[in-house]
């Protein structure tokens, strides 16, 4: 254990199997009365890599082997077992646990258990030394319910804010001292990028900097949270987690024009501060909720299941390698909502977390009982299969009526075709070409109507609905051809001992979603507040935001995490309330200055004695470049991506769909593919569209510099900014000032004025000498490009 933890309610008690045999009695006793005590009382000193006196308690073998004093237990012989003497406190030297005597009943339980032969239920593990994984899980912080914790008191009086009180308690322990608060200019730029991903305009900057009222910052935060750009920023964060893409990822990477509806749903949900529990439920089971909910929210909730529909596709035919697509669903559900890596359990019981293959295929059954849409693939091109199972965004009765009309229309066309073909056979040579032409045209029309997958008058979403509900069989070693036992659909058993009550005819997604969003769920709230935290600080309290399992990072501030999770649930799962809480802390508002004393103690700033300087992510870089240069269209695109019409689709694996669509809208609206990455996003560490991205990297590589120096895109942006300066100001000094306010949200320093003016003069003179274009304009464009390429533009203090 890395940190002390309050006594626990042992999780595994409830999961013990119903005993049926005498052997099981001993095992049931172990599950109910022995393991929880071992976990709670002994694990801290005898559980980890380093153990007191060499004794480990994580497996029967370890207890039999014992430690420096020899065997801890002798199965069948409680009176000869050192452990019993130690817990009875009758041993001369060893009395355990050291300060906290076990209750008498508990001591008797141990004696009874050893007498019964010390049975320990079978488990699988890959390393002889790692012991019972369920044992470790029971001790793992993230699998226990979040504790209701009160913030530590701060004797220094530095801050009353609950976050600050948790954080400063750690500083005091380590001898750290916080750096000074950030200045208002830094704070301004930081909060703009944190919340909306755009730089403040000079007017917005002035509004805040000239506002001396005590709640100026608070009101700024409110303004930004109310802005439509907020959802574009935070929706994009969620798109990383749900591996959003506008293509399917099959061998030909077919486009999904309807995917954008889900994208817009995410943006709208964040803007509306949709309670996170509802947000989760809609993405997993929105189609089912839609049938129960108000008609005006029908389409919205159906669209939400784009989360599942966007699971990665493979190969060429519909539903080919379906087990891998469902693996992506399961893995994304696990990582995004639960912070668990479930994928491993496809082929074998999880090596590190207590997730069995049974658990995996229990979830698999839920998603296998779900009808996913098919967006196309190589066999669409060959016209073997049309797009299918798109979800109509009309009420079911309307959709059914129109579908029926559509079917009739298609039938009539087919009949007409048959008729024409008959005529064609019978026709004389003179009439043949005319009929041939008619057949050809009608057939083309018929195919095209079918190909889109929906009647032309029915709007559709790339979303899921319940299919044929069935429990799934285990696929041995992950091979779908090798069937094992069938397992009932349910949630992960060690976290959810009770079966899900799945009504006949349903997949179980709704019940899974309900379980996930229970207020007392140990993971869901913690995982989400940690994600929010990560985007405000650059690193989560848990540094592995999608892995809260035993192999994930330990929280740097476990109590704070639990406190925030509790606040989150209490606030009605309000993401915006969490932003307000975090941003109002003094901790978040610290400057990014260094401090040698602190650096020596906590090099990585894990304990948050300063605010970490961060590079903008790919979208913020592009949006800022466009915004500052006046080229950004801040509206949401009203139409979809300019994909070719479906009638022209003919992509194959040898000729995959590959396109880049330029747009002046924000980067969240860029068309992103799976088999190729958008060139700008790839260059600046954009998200992986094939798998959930928990955290962006910000690599600094020369190709980025080459892009900034030499690309035609950058030249155009720099020219636009130069035009903006030239048309707004005539005085060079004023232009320089405007440039700095636009790019860096601050006025130039004393030195920057003459430096800039001299630069323009030298550049203009040199350009004139070689008669290269308009010397002065070129000089301003060059000046703009270098300001836009500079570190100050790319980093937020």
């Amino acid at each position: 254990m890395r940190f002390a933890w309050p006594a626990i309610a042992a999780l595994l008690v409830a999961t013990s199997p119903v005993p049926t045999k005498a052997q099981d009695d001993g095992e049931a006793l172990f599950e109910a009365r022995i393991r929880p005590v071992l976990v709670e009382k002994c694990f801290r000193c005898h559980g980890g890599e380093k153990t007191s006196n060499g004794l480990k308690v994580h497996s029967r073998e370890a207890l039999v082997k014992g430690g420096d004093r020899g065997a801890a237990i002798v199965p069948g012989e409680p009176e000869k077992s050192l452990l019993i003497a130690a817990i009875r406190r009758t041993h001369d030297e060893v009395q355990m646990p050291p300060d906290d005597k076990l209750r008498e009943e508990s001591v008797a339980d141990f004696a009874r258990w050893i007498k019964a032969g010390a049975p320990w239920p079978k488990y699988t593990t890959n390393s002889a030394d790692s012991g019972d994984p369920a044992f470790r899980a029971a001790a793992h912080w993230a699998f226990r319910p979040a504790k209701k914790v009160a913030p530590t008191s701060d004797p220094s009086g530095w801050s009353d804010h609950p976050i600050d009180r948790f954080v400063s308690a750690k500083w005091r322990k380590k001898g750290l001292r916080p750096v000074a608060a950030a200045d208002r200019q830094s704070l301004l730029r930081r909060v703009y990028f944190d919340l909306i991903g755009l730089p403040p305009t000079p007017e917005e900057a002035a509004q805040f900097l000239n506002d001396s009222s005590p709640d100026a910052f608070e009101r700024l935060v409110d303004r930004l949270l109310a802005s439509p750009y907020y959802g574009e920023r935070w929706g994009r964060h969620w798109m990383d987690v749900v591996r959003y893409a506008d293509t399917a990822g099959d061998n030909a990477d077919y486009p999904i024009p309807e995917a954008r509806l889900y994208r817009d749903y995410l943006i709208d949900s964040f803007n509306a501060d949709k309670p996170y529990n509802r947000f989760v439920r809609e993405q997993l089971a929105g189609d089912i909720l839609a049938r129960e909910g108000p008609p005006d929210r029908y389409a919205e909730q159906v669209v939400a299941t784009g989360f599942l529909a966007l699971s990665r596709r493979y190969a060429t035919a519909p539903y080919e390698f379906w087990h891998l697509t469902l693996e992506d669903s399961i893995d994304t559900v696990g990582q995004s909502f639960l912070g668990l890596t479930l994928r491993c359990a496809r082929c074998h019981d999880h090596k590190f977390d207590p997730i069995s293959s049974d658990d995996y295929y229990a979830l698999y059954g839920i998603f296998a009982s779900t009808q996913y849409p098919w967006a196309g693939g190589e066999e669409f091109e060959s016209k073997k299969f049309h797009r299918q199972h798109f979800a109509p965004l009309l009420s079911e009765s309307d959709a059914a009526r129109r579908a029926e009309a559509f079917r009739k229309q298609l039938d009539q066309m087919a009949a007409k075709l048959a008729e024409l073909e008959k005529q064609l056979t019978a026709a004389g040579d003179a009439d043949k070409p005319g009929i041939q032409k008619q057949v050809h045209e009608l057939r083309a029309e018929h195919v095209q109507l079918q190909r889109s997958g929906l009647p032309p008058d029915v709007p559709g979403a790339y979303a899921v609905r319940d299919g044929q509900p069935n429990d799934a069989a285990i696929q041995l070693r992950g091979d779908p051809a090798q069937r094992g036992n069938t397992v009932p659909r349910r949630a992960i058993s060690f976290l959810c001992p009770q079966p899900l009550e799945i009504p006949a005819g349903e997949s179980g997604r709704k019940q899974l979603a309900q379980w996930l969003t229970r207020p007392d769920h140990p993971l869901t709230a913690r995982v989400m507040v940690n994600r929010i935290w990560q985007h405000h600080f650059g690193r989560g309290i848990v540094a592995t935001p999608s892995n809260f399992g035993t192999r994930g990072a330990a929280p740097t501030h476990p109590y704070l995490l639990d406190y925030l999770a509790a606040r989150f649930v209490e606030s009605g799962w309000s993401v915006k309330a969490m932003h307000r809480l975090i941003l109002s802390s003094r901790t978040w508002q610290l400057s990014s200055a260094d401090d040698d004393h602190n650096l020596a103690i906590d090099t990585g700033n894990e304990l948050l004695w300063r605010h970490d300087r961060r590079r903008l992510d790919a979208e913020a870089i592009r949006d800022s470049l466009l915004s500052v240069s006046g080229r950004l269209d801040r509206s949401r695109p009203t139409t979809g991506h300019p994909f070719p019409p479906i009638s022209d689709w003919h992509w194959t694996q040898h000729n995959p769909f590959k396109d880049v669509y330029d747009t002046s809208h924000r980067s969240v609206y860029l068309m992103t593919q799976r088999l190729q990455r958008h060139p700008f996003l790839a260059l600046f560490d954009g998200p992986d569209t094939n798998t959930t991205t928990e955290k962006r990297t910000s690599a600094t590589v020369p190709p980025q510099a080459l892009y900034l120096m030499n690309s035609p895109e950058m030249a155009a942006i720099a020219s636009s900014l130069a035009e903006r300066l030239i048309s707004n100001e005539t005085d060079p000094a004023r232009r320089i000032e405007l440039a700095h306010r636009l790019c860096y949200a601050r006025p130039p320093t004393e030195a920057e004025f003459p430096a800039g003016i001299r630069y323009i003069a030298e550049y203009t003179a040199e350009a004139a000498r070689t008669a290269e274009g308009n010397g002065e304009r070129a000089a301003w464009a060059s000046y703009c490009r270098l300001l836009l390429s500079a570190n100050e533009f790319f980093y937020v203090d």
Partner: protein
Amino acid sequence: MPLDRRRFLQSTAAGAAAGLLYPRLAVAARMNEGRLLAPQPAHHPAKARSLVFIHLTGGFSHVDTFDYKPKLQQDDRKKVTAETLRDITEQPLLASPFKFAQHGQSGLWISELFPHLARVADELCVIRTLHTDILEHFQAVLAMHTGSATVPMPSIGAWLSYGLGTANPNLPPYVVLCEHLPYAGAQVWDASFLPPAHQGTRLLPGDRPIANLQSRTSNVTLAELEFRMLKDVNESHAAARNNDLALRARIGSFDTARGMMQVGPEVFDLSQEMADTLDLYGVASGDNRSFAWQCLVARRLVERGVRTVELIDTGTSNNWDSHGNMQDHRPKAARVDQAIAGLVRDLKRRGLLEDTLIAIATEFGRSPWDPGQGRNHWHKAFTCLLCGAGVRGGLAYGETDEYGILPIKDPVHVHDYHATILHLLGIDHMRLTYRYAGRDFRLTDVHGNVVQAILS
């Protein structure tokens, strides 16, 4: 010829001296440029100056390539105890469908998959007892590159850049040629907690391996002026921020980028290569993408002082992961065999093999058993090759059991493999450390022994 630190700095400041339009910046350039990447002294005299790190993705089979097992051929379909991820079962052995023969004076056993490498057998050191910890691609690929199968850590190329710097300030210290992203993606060449300047730079085989290499203006002075002004702006920004390493690295990336603009186009211009050289690798006329082309470019990068050149042959699919049929190894081998052999011979005849180390590896081997005609992943014994500077050629090192299941003599863990490579480049793996989050980290964690017996 290694550059010393002073000459390195002079060369990067040379452009600044030419124009003198901005003298203050020229001084700044001399003071700060290249600090992170300047050549550093080795711990001991290095055998190799450069490393060519070839990763054959997907797990190539040891018992079908370099670890000949006659007994496996005899006992085809005999059941053995087979360890899989979850349990221990009985599975039938699968004989190799490929013919083996001895090659060279050394008599190294090499299968028919590698006819060209067979002809340079006496240059190759075959390590037959490599073993790793995890038999999943993602983790194993990461382990081969970073020594860590789980937590992202710096890549071996990044460590070498950090430890030794680079001899050519105008090219990245660590170049990765890879057409398709590998398992674990860019983490494979990441600098992780090392300063980002040490991170691998990916070049994309094809028409424009490096995008945006051409300056916007033909007037060199104008480009120079803008470049130096940017540097000035960045320098004062960084100076006010305690010279934050990330900021410094980004400043350095502009220096490198400018160097690339000068020397880059020439690196990929094969017009001066002799026809027999192209033939050696198997580069066809107009080819600018094949693995052969990549191997030839690797030589050109090594010639120009790049510390580590990595070649990754395939991406996450259509690679050496032959679960279904071992015959799938044939096209994969055919794609790389002549190219790698060509690189060995070309370096040799130019005298460059004396200070270049070629390391050819995969993430794990394949199980000697299989119920079908393919093979599963197998991590407890597999084969890699070393070749060139400081390595005994024509040597088969280590021994696996009669079927190639477990090492029985001289096992070499991935950490040992890394320690040996670092040793050949003049680095003591125990001493190349980086303090991060309160701990000294190194490529080999707390393990690793140099495999002395393979050193020449």
